């Protein structure tokens, strides 16, 4: 049926769907975007996947007896181990894509005008993702998660004023029998907020990206559907290798011990995607040290558009790109050291890698970008 002459059955009854299909097939996109431009879409697809697998887990999960209910899912529920693996491996893939997205944004300097808002929304989504990831880790009920919740609730209670009130409200007081039930609700609700942030980001990105001349445009379908399909299949392949052959990738074995006061982690014990942040929070001592490290690490990312002193429109110089790659290795090293992988040297390495993180943003970024702008 020709849609130009007569609207299709669906379009005449649900006009928004007809417009949606027309939008997909009208040439409106730039030609040959690189594969890595697919990352925001992959993150969204990954979150949909996590929502679906999380739904299955949620109906069998019991926050009052978290560890036993995970055992039940993995051992008794039909293919429960597979769904649990989907959720854990999906998280790994989403975080890998999120870290890559930030690295790519820094290398391409896409955070500068007019892309600041896109960058800010990226960081907000990333911070939310970390929080949701941490909540999921806490929900496992393992020993590592147990101590992480204990430390977080204690730190939140000690915060002064409104922040402390917010923290107390979030956790509902010190770690107790009802804590995981509250965290379960927040794990689900905040995950849905990420979708909203990604939707805002999509709008901001469209506004910040100039469209090519009409002759140079292609339609989303079939050109980008074909490209996105490749990205999706390759992600699925990586995910399957991890899920079926390295199911505990990036997780502490201690989290297979039921949480309790007698099982203590020697390192941070957090999954790999939280490890760099655990390193930053271990950097500062004192009552508020942990929260200070976390907040400072994320605020520096938020401030990047203003820490970069080069004018708009200049391409990134070689030195800046080199420094960004060094920062990527530094963050990897920070996470590695925070998990206690370096033995007795871990404490020292956390300080060295953490100090480089702050040096990079507060000193090297303004100086190098200002020099390159001249």
């Amino acid at each position, binding site marked *: 049926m020709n849609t130009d002459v007569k609207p299709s059955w669906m379009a005449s009854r649900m006009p928004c769907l007809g417009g949606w299909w027309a939008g997909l097939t009208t040439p409106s996109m730039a*030609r*040959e975007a690189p594969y890595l431009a697919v990352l925001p879409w992959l993150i969204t697809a990954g979150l949909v996947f996590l929502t679906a697998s999380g739904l299955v887990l949620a109906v069998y999960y019991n926050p009052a007896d978290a560890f036993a209910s995970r*055992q039940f899912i*993995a*051992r008794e529920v039909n293919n429960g*181990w*597979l769904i649990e*693996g989907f959720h854990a491996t999906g998280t790994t893939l989403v975080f890998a894509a999120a870290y890559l997205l930030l690295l790519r944004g820094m290398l391409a300097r896409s955070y500068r005008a007019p892309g600041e808002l896109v960058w800010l929304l990226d960081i907000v989504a990333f911070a939310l993702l970390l929080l949701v990831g941490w909540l999921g880790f806490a929900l496992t009920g393992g020993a590592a998660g147990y101590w992480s919740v204990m430390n977080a609730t204690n730190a939140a209670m000690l915060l002064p004023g409104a922040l402390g009130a917010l923290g107390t409200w979030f956790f509902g007081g010190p770690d107790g029998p009802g804590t995981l039930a509250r965290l379960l609700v927040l794990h689900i609700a905040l995950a849905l907020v990420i979708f909203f942030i990604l939707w805002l980001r999509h709008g901001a990105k469209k506004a910040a990206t100039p469209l090519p001349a009409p002759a140079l445009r*292609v339609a989303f379908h*079939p*050109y980008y559907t*074909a*490209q996105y*399909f*490749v990205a999706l*299949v*390759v992600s*699925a*392949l990586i995910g*399957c*290798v991890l*899920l*079926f*052959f390295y*199911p*505990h990738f990036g997780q502490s*074995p*201690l989290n*297979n*011990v*039921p949480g309790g006061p007698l099982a203590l982690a020697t390192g941070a014990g957090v999954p790999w995607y939280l490890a760099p942040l655990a390193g930053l929070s271990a950097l500062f001592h004192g009552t508020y040290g942990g929260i200070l490290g976390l907040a400072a690490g994320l605020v520096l990312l938020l401030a990047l558009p203003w820490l970069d002193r080069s004018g708009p429109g200049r391409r990134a110089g070689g030195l800046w790109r080199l420094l960004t790659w060094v920062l990527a290795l530094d963050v990897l090293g920070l996470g590695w050291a925070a998990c206690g992988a370096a033995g007795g040297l871990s404490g020292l390495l956390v300080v060295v890698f953490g100090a480089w993180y702050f040096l990079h943003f507060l000193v090297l970024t303004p100086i190098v970008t200002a020099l390159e702008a001249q």
Partner: protein
Amino acid sequence: MRPVFGKLWLATGLLALLGGNALAHDRLSPFHFQSQGLLGSTDKAAAQRGFLVYETVCASCHTAKALHYRDLEALGLTPDQVAGIAAGVKTANGAPATLNDTFPAPKIPAGAFGGAVPPDLSDIAAQRPHGARYIDHLLTGYAPAPAGVTLLPSYYYNTAYPGGQLAMPPPLKADDVTYADGKSATVAQQAADVSEFLAWSADPNLDARHEVGLRAVLFLVFLTIIAIASKRRIWRETV
């Protein structure tokens, strides 16, 4: 035969030789478990023997709360055999256990072993790095304390245990169990068997995981090739 095939045969022979050597090496030192490795699977015969050791020795002090008697069917035992095993076990209220009962908790006084609590063994292989190998080393790792090490009262020196001092007395003695398949029940054999059983207990889906995984990965490798080819073909029309 064309020379290329000659080379192929030579390469295959060399590979077989190398592979054979590697396998022989694995089986001697360090000890090799069938459940280890990228495509490992549960050694059901060893796990059945391991269950006998577990039931005779370990279960007198340890729990394995996550395991039901019906789960043993995954080790190749028939439902009747498993029902027979369960019927020989008393649950907490004194009735014989059924297929749907979990392994019962043994009654040991709180002060036994100097107050040290025997851990639950359902997931012990997943809780320790290199689970199966660690358990095997622990069970065969008892030794006289070296000079300079002062043991705590009623503790035992063990080379595999972190810190070296363990409250569990050496649990295995040769010929404590009699294997149905006629294998000689040395301490090393019992340790290896119970390690394989506990590796299965911590990862009962290992066989299914590797089976499904291999198929999924092969399928996705081909799908990737097709997806890339179709993407290139579609984009060729735009140039």
